[in-house]
């Protein structure tokens, strides 16, 4: 069963609200491995914060909602927003830095999500982005 948050303004404050919601829900599923819970929270924060920080909406009313579906082997995460189209699968993260002096300080989020999830999909339907992550 998928459980969704309400639509909420895509702000950094609401990232924390969503993380708290996801964590509370996850604690109702003790079968979820601690490592998967960690990945869930890391990826969720990254993806929703990306919307809050980088997405825009023509009318300025950018909203996001998140869903979770717990499964025996893990959890599926659904992130939906009405920002401009952004396909994280087509996004090319910067190369992996190996030299501290020349390394950038940020821009590692999508790479982390790709590394930590077992699958990622993206759809654009109407004015909405739909991202689905599989964890575990």
């Amino acid at each position, binding site marked *: 069963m998928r459980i969704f948050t309400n639509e909420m303004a895509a702000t*950094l404050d609401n*990232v*924390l609200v969503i*993380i708290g919601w996801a964590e509370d829900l996850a604690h109702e599923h003790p079968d979820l491995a*601690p*490592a998967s819970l*960690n*990945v869930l*929270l*890391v990826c969720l*924060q*990254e993806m929703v*914060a990306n919307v809050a920080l980088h997405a825009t909406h023509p009318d300025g009313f950018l909203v996001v909602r998140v869903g979770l579906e717990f499964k025996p082997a893990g959890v599926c995460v659904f992130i939906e927003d009405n920002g401009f189209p952004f396909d994280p699968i087509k996004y090319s993260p910067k190369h*992996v*830095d*190996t*030299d*501290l*002096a020349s*390394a950038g*300080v*940020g821009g*590692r*989020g999508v*790479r*982390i999500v790709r*590394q*930590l999830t077992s699958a990622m999909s993206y759809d654009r339907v109407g004015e909405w982005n739909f991202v689905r992550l599989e964890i575990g």
Partner: protein
Amino acid sequence: MEIVSEFTERGVQIVSLKGRMSIGDLQEIETRLKALVSDKPFVIIDLTHLNFLFSMCLRTLVICAKDAELRGDRLVLLAPTENILTVLKASGVSLLVPVYVHLSQAEEALCFKPEV
């Protein structure tokens, strides 16, 4: 999140991060951490008691490490839990900032001066 600073007998500063490093207090953490390590030649960031490291917070660790290198100082990470190490590896940050399991190893790596 709690930040505790102490020094070893060899003068190495250990900054322990305890709790959860989240975006809610990112600015405060960055300001405090930078102030703590800005003039120290050898710094160990102890992650033993860090429960969660969200990806945006990696920026703070990389900034501190880059600043140290620019000054000619050295900064390493110590004893991340499995969850934290997962994020450090997935991000590639573990390739940039040395990670040690034991304090003695970290301290030795910082204080070791190769013979000229």
